[in-house]
């Protein structure tokens, strides 16, 4: 019964986003910007899957996923900017010239090549996650302390990225790209292609996460969430498991960031400020943590709401989000997905009652 429901949900999801939306665009009912906006939401959903793995399943509240997301975005942004600079005959991106820098900083060099950029976009977040995780998990830092430390780390990184001396564009971030792999970013077909790539990556990421959570590895993660000490006494090396899932979550965030960049055309440190990193966790909280579908739906729905609310009531988005969050915590702690279950239960209960009275 449950698997049947799942399959139906998957088919509906894919049919809607892979067929209906593009068809709507081709028929001229939707603008290409709408398509692009959903493509961006898919990137957030990919990152949300990672948050669900580390927080929903393993119970580690990591507030630095926004930082990993930005690492992915910045990597691709550096590549695109270099390509544009070289094409225009200059040696340095504009902002560096304005900052009176005469040689390209060493860490920009590998980003000339697309291949290296992709590798580094994955390798750097993974390495960061590995080192952070190694230190934190070895020192047995848990619960709220983990959240505080990772949030502080994100804040520190945000401050570093804000500085002009970091040579990553400072407050303005990196922007003004024109093409990716030779295709113009402003063309509608490239936008549609990026949308479809994001959707495909989201679906494959979902599949991988599904396999992970349904393997014995996933059960160990849940066991760590429930009773960490019992897992150690059962001879599992808890730190190894936490470290592995932290790296996987960082990679998912980075992949989301990589796909996000060409679809928005700008990345600034604002993507990893405190508000952004809390918001990412909220997608999963509202969608339903410990539930992969919840993470995806949460990320898509919250961002969709965001775009509606910011155009209707521009100043009150944070109040609306906060209100939703309070309601979720108070009344349905399993999020939107849990809400579905509650309604289904109520429905079947009333049906049972009516069938009994007849």
């Amino acid at each position, binding site marked *: 019964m449950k698997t049947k429901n799942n399959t139906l949900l998957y088919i509906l999801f894919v049919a809607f986003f892979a067929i209906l939306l593009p068809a709507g665009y081709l028929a001229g009912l939707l603008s290409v910007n709408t398509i692009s906006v959903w493509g961006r939401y898919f990137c957030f959903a990919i990152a949300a899957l990672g948050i669900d793995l580390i927080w929903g399943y393993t119970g580690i509240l990591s507030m630095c996923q926004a930082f990993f997301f930005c690492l992915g975005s910045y990597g691709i942004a550096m590549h695109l900017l270099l390509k544009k600079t070289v094409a225009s005959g200059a040696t340095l991106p504009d902002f560096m010239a304005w900052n009176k820098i005469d040689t390209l900083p060493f860490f920009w060099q590998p980003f000339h090549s697309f291949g290296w950029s992709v590798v580094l976009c994955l390798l750097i977040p993974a390495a960061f996650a590995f080192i952070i995780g190694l230190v934190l998990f070895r020192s047995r830092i848990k619960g709220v302390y983990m959240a505080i430390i990772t949030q502080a780390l994100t804040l520190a990184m945000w401050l570093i990225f804000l500085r002009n001396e970091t040579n990553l564009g400072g407050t303005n971030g990196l922007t003004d790209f024109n093409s990716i792999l030779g295709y113009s970013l402003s063309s509608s077909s490239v936008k549609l292609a990026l949308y479809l790539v994001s959707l495909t990556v989201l679906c494959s990421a979902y599949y991988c996460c599904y396999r992970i959570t349904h393997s014995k590895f996933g059960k160990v993660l*849940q066991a760590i969430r*429930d009773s960490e000490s*019992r897992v*150690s006494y059962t001879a599992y090396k808890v730190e190894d498991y936490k470290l*592995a899932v932290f790296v996987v979550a960082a990679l998912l965030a980075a992949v989301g960031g990589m796909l996000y960049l060409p679809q928005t055309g700008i990345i600034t440190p604002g993507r990893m400020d405190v508000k952004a990193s809390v918001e990412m966790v909220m997608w999963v909280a509202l969608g339903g943590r410990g539930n992969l579908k919840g993470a995806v739906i949460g990320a898509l729905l919250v961002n969709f709401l965001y775009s509606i609310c910011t155009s209707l009531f521009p100043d009150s988005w944070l109040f609306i989000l906060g209100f939703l969050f309070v309601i979720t915590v108070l009344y349905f702690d399993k999020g939107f997905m849990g809400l579905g279950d509650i309604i289904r239960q109520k429905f079947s209960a009333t049906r049972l009652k009516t069938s009994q009275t007849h």
Partner: protein
Amino acid sequence: MLLNVNNLSVSFGGVHALNLDHFSLRDKELRVIIGPNGAGKSTFLDIICGKTKADKGDITFNGKSILGKSEVKIAEAGIGRKFQKPSVFPGLTVYDNLLLAAKMKKDIFTSLFFKSTPALEEKIHQVAVKLSLTNVMYKPAGDLSHGQKQWLEIAIVVLQDPTLMLIDEPAAGMSDEETEKTGALLLELSKSHSIIVIEHDMKFVEQIANELVTVLVRGKRLTEGTFAEVKNDQRVIDCYLGRTNAQLETL
């Protein structure tokens, strides 16, 4: 001797929780430890399984020192622990609880690509039958009754197949019938495992204590003997009834 403990001491904030001069356990022996509240019984097991770090002393298990090793190392060496307060994985089903416990390689990659085998299923099933868990196999462990959780935790320890089982108050919160069944099970397990049991329920102790009983009082070993000897020892009676006794005072 399977387990040898010498001059083990630990104190919490200046209070000597445990000050054990000597303790040893034979292979396949079932030992019961009794003593009034605060005697250091659970602390003793905590130190053996690596939960609490001792201030000084030494513990050898199977000829190797295990003091100060991590919980995982100690578990791998073959020591399994059941806690006083049942510690299971409430969000997982009973079956998953048992599956995670079962003895096998437990690194990340083995877990990621794990495929169950008929032999393993059979083993899990046998243990579940032994502990009457078969009809709740696919229920979340958090929904079980207290007694069932106790059994589930014992099942977890059994599936780990340790050489030494440390069982802390297995009969707490159980009905008489359940208690007796638990006792019978421990006796059966003692044929193939060494077991240390902590218990307050004297009827239960009488049922399982075929060999030695150790009495701990205020972190020290008061006496060691058969259940009959211990039961009739005036000092033991006094410390349980809270009567002052000259010999106790000198301890």
